[in-house]
């Protein structure tokens, strides 16, 4: 493998940014170990690696949020120390965060002003925002409050904020994980225009296909070290994944669906109303999931997924008991425990805080949902030996990397905790499993294991409902796919009869239903 810190001819312009031997140590882990990286002007450079490989740490150091313990940074050939994000912005480094650093109750203009060091008067800034957003095809209304915006629009706010500073280097951390395919395609156009104008783009993503389409060079990190460089256009998604993992990738095979069994979950005329102005109300949602099949519900976050999960799990009780029928029993008025007793298991989207209690050990976390269906409690007292044994069964059965059943849930990596939570639910032999975002932020190896477990569960006769924003995942898993948009659910289609593009259009709101009040439909076309 060629050394990554290539030498460049002395008369050529210096690279935009060069990292030499960057090292960052956290208590108990070496996050970056002598990382070298060279970014040229005008290139779109991918930074690849599994969760915990050190990508986020590295870009945070470039952006001045963290500081390296050792190593040097050369900005356009000159040695530089980035003291803080404001210093990075002064150099011309912009960053779009994975979790947007936006403020819900402030307007677009106010949000952007916060990220600029010379914002100037608000009305002038609003004019500049309009100008830039038109030039790059990023439609934005400067006066709106951020909580009104779709996820794609929120990202545009972040990007416009960076563009207003004429960045020379734009760092994008998982930018498309929350976008519809059409929105992502639009983003790529913008990025290509930017790169053509000479801006360097450092692009972090798990989605290897889009890296192949977008990036001209890639640097691969594993366990904090640079383990390779590649031209993604010459690689396959599989070879890139294996470079990241350092091992062979096994993708789950989906055996043909057997005869669909009885309806295990039936949802009829499910509507919700909420006091929370940030919530999306469900509007007359209807579907059923039968034994042996996996139904996928696609949709961009914020279109009612959280509300649907809460209504199905029993976290929110429904006035209409018949709106949710589990195994033939009306359950809309029942709480989570009663629904679990009927055969429901569920894996919420947030691992820490909903799926598991961060401060509790794995065996205690196993007990929390396991007690309804496993004999872990006797006469009101916890049977700790059984809880321990149950946790250890999960850890072994699902290859969870953890320091035994005593490990605190928060000490596990995202992928391992998710394997543990899904294992906890599946081992209870549920008749119906509802999963939200099963592999969000989970690396390729763990994702494959989780997908296999879900498919095996369905083939054993259980009904599985997967709510996800990740279309690739839904196309791997689902027998049928529906789309949730603005609280409405589209009719389902067999997966083999539809395409990513069609589902993408539905995710943007092209339902064939009358336009919604704020005209979102035109936006998606």
């Amino acid at each position, binding site marked *: 493998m060629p050394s990554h810190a290539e030498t460049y001819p002395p008369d050529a312009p210096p690279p935009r940014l060069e990292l030499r031997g960057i090292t960052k140590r956290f208590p108990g882990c070496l996050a970056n170990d002598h990382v070298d990286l060279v970014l040229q002007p005008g290139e779109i450079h991918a930074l690849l690696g599994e969760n915990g490989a050190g990508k986020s740490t590295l870009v945070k150091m470039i952006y001045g949020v963290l500081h390296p313990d050792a190593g040097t940074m050369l900005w356009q050939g000159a040695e530089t120390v980035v003291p803080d994000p404001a210093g990075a912005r002064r150099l011309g480094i912009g960053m779009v965060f994975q979790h947007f650093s936006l*403020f819900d109750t402030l307007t677009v203009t106010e949000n952007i002003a916060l990220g600029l060091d010379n914002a100037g008067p608000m009305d002038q800034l609003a004019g500049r925002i309009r100008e830039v957003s038109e030039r790059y095809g990023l439609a934005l209304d400067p006066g709106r409050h951020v909580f009104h915006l779709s996820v794609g629009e929120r990202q545009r706010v972040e990007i416009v904020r960076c563009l207003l500073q004429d960045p020379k280097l734009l760092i994008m951390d998982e930018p498309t994980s929350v976008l519809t395919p059409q929105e992502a395609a639009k983003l790529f156009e913008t990025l290509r225009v930017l790169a053509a104008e000479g801006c360097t783009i450092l692009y972090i993503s798990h989605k290897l296909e889009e890296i192949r389409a977008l990036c001209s060079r890639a640097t691969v990190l594993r366990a904090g070290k640079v383990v390779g460089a590649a031209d993604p256009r010459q690689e396959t998604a599989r070879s890139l994944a294996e470079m990241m993992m350092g091992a062979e990738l096994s993708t789950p095979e989906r055996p043909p669906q057997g005869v669909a069994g009885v309806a295990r979950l039936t949802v009829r005329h499910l509507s919700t109303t909420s006091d929370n102005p940030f919530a999306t109300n469900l509007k007359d949602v209807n579907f059923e999931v039968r034994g042996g099949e996996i139904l996928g519900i696609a949709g961009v976050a914020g279109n009612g997924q959280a509300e649907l999960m809460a209504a199905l799990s029993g976290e929110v009780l429904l006035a209409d008991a018949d709106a949710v029928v589990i195994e033939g029993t009306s359950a809309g008025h029942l709480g989570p425990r009663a629904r679990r007793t009927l055969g429901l298991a569920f894996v919420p989207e947030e691992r820490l805080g909903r799926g598991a209690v961060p401060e509790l050990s794995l065996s205690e976390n196993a007990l929390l949902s396991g007690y309804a269906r496993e004999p872990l409690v006797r006469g009101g007292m916890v049977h700790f030996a059984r809880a321990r044994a149950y946790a250890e069964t999960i850890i072994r059965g699902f290859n969870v990397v953890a320091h035994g059943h005593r490990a605190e849930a928060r000490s596990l990596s995202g992928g391992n905790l998710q394997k543990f939570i899904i294992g906890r639910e599946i081992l209870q032999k549920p008749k119906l499993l509802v999963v939200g975002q099963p592999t969000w932020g989970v690396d390729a190896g763990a994702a494959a294991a989780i997908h296999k477990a879900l498919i095996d569960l369905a083939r054993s006769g259980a009904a599985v409902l997967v709510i996800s924003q990740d279309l690739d995942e839904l196309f791997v898993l689902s027998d049928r796919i529906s789309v949730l948009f603005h609280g409405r659910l589209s009719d389902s289609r067999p997966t083999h009869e539809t395409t990513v593009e069609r589902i993408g259009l539905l995710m943007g709101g092209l339902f064939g239903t009358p336009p919604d009040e704020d005209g979102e439909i035109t936006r998606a076309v």
Partner: protein
Amino acid sequence: MSDLALIGPILAAMFAAATPLLFAALGELVVEKSGVLNLGVEGMMLVGAVCGFAVTVQTGSPVTGFLVAAFAGAATASLFAVLTLFLLANQVATGLALTLFGVGLSALIGQGFVGIPLEGLPKLHIPGLTDLPVVGQALFGQDIMVYLAVAAVPLVHLFLYRSRAGLVLRAVGENHTAAHALGYKVLRIRFFAVLFGGAMAGLGGAFLSMDYTPMWAENMTSGRGWIALALVVFATWKPVRAMLGAWLFGGVTILQLHVQGLGIDVPSQLLSMLPYLATVLVLVLISRDVARIRLNAPACLGKLFHPDA
């Protein structure tokens, strides 16, 4: 008509009664907008009250008295700030402790000052205007601190909603992680917000002891710090609404005094409860509008922040 003649003095007294609340509430509003919940307002008011009083008695200068009161309030608040912001102590518990601490400390400092009378501040007199019937006394016959408190309302509003510093402060209260990621010094901003809140509470307390009832008595704020805290929520974190709330509370306080004076046969304890009851009632009515509270409440209110994340 004696009733009509009463309205002028009642109005005038209402503005005065509202002033300590207005100072304290405006200060706490800024503190909460930055994401910090300081329940120690009562304690800071008491410390301000006793320090301002003591210094005025010693020096004879009310200006020095008010300055020292503001400084004392801020110093008390800095204790809270160090504990909660830098040592990550729980804000609710620390705030409650601060109130208890303020009650004790002010009683200790005030031991030698009980029973000493003070003159109070001179009232404005503009010939013609102040003599207007009904509103003359209320609008043009107050002392400087009453006007200062009212003037602080648009100032705080402009600061919060028109200035860049105010925008940053609101951003810190809304989402401290994001503000930190953008490079804002969350803890420093909160520290200064808490100091401002303490200074304003100190001024409010000193207004009580140096002007409204110019004397020192233990616990003389009698719960006004708590009312100020309630007013901030009542006002859904908007300065102008906080002023309206303070006037309402002040108005009911004065009204019930007059009703007591008229000798109506209602137990005086019941009447004394009225201002608090009225505040609670309005709070409950306002709180029914969940949407408005969600939109204006700082999302990070009371949450601890640690920059290494």
